[in-house]
């Protein structure tokens, strides 16, 4: 479903990605783990088409993302949901309007139907009582959950999560991860999660990739990664890893 081959990206002559290659099968969720500044978010933005690679290819469902322009890129993005690290909620809209926004803009659903969907989604992520608040009035955790609701409201075929649980308390982390798992079981989306949430993430994903030094140093199922004899993997899993260039 998602095939990345030899992906290279530099910023001001500073290499961030140096030959990333991996594959995510349809219906699978991949966790990309790695140190801060390892280029995980940059990798995710390449998959979404927000950034263009210096070299290499990303093929999603037979489409080479970097070659997509105009309407083709628009159609590709209609299949995607993206949870941004900071939420990227629209400041000028309430939580309800933020979550309803993709439905209002991209579908012809009646307002009544939109209301049902939004209320159900807000209930799922546990912020149904915050629907009239604006992003500035929300805590970090609530913002994340509102952004998650907005990303999932259109039931996308492919979901990209950029650190969905960073900065959340342990109970909210468990709720958010559980919600991602349940939604995945229900809708069967293909997903990539960039995260530091180890080992909790292993219960949610089918594949794990460790990104370090601009390349994938380990790739496999959560069990394979946990059993890996690679020193860097073990160092990272046990919390001892130190790292790499800034992205």
């Amino acid at each position, binding site marked *: 479903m998602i095939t990345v081959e030899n992906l290279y990206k530099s910023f001001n002559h500073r290499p961030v990605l140096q030959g990333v290659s991996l594959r995510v099968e349809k219906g699978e969720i991949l966790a990309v783990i790695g140190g801060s500044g390892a280029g995980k978010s940059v990798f995710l933005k390449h998959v979404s088409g*927000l950034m263009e690679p210096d070299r290499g290819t990303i093929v999603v469902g037979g489409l080479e993302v970097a070659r997509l322009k105009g309407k083709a890129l628009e159609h590709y993005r209609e299949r995607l949901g993206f949870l941004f690290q900071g939420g990227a909620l629209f400041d000028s809209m309430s939580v309800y309007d933020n979550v309803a926004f993709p439905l209002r803009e991209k579908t012809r659903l009646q307002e009544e139907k939109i209301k049902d969907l939004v209320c159900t989604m807000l209930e799922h992520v546990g912020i149904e009582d915050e629907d009239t608040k604006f992003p500035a009035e929300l805590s970090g955790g609530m913002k994340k959950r509102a952004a998650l609701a907005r990303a999932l409201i259109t039931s996308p075929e492919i979901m990209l999560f950029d650190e969905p649980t960073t900065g959340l308390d342990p109970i909210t982390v468990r709720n958010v991860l559980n919600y991602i798992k349940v939604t995945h079981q229900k809708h069967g989306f293909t997903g990539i999660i960039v995260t530091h949430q180890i080992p909790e993430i292993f219960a949610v994903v089918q594949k794990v990739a460790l990104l370090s030094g601009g390349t994938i140093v380990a790739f496999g199922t959560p069990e394979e990664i946990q059993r890996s004899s690679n020193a860097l993997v073990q160092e990272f899993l046990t919390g001892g890893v130190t790292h790499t260039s800034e992205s």
Partner: protein
Amino acid sequence: MVTILILPIRYLGHLFLKTISSLGKSGIFLFTALVLIFIPPYKIYRVIKQVRFVGVNSTFIVLLTGAFTGMVLGIQGYYSLNKFAAESLLGPIVALSLIRELGPVFTAIMITARAGSALSAEIGIMRITEQIDALEMMALNPIRYLVVPNIVAGIISFPILAAFFDLIGILGGYLVGVKMLGLSEGGYFGEMRNMVTMQDITVGFYKSISFGIIVNWICCYKGYYTGYGAEGVSKATTEAVVVCSVLILVWDYFMASFFF
């Protein structure tokens, strides 16, 4: 030694390339926005919202500056015309100055200061907080969503506000010339009716429309391509106001020459 000689040339070359690239990028930005005005879906609600923000909310400041500009023109015009015993021409001088030049120019500068800077900052913050990326990820064109409504709002609001500026300015000139300095009311308005033509009004109208496009184009462009963090947004906002103010005066000269 050679390096010292090469450095300024390299700097100039870099500056030249950067300027050309920036001009091209801003030109494509404007062209895209102008083309999207005519391609559905139309964001009518966003246009109304921006007309309110750019236009309605600027009314008070435009009326205030218009009144005082007209009053100053009344005093200065009377002082100059008095030397030639031609005070009766005060009405047309105030009206022509306002309708052809000062109305559109001052209105544009006041809106730049009030709404343009805010617009640039708003779009800049949307950029650095990834809200523009979020729009793209929803398969929405950020230029259609953020820039087009502002340009349309500018095309609608600027001429209307400039007309208000002209009107209140003429009344300000009347207050000073007729009520304070003792000119005849009939002379003030009668001469104005004789000398101000439809062409003068059209010139002011065209200028206002072009300023509406320029101000919204520059402010949106600077915000859209803002630098990183709060410093980037503050720099973009300052640049937007400075570039708009200069461009308004430069463009005014070219239009004044064209319609002379």
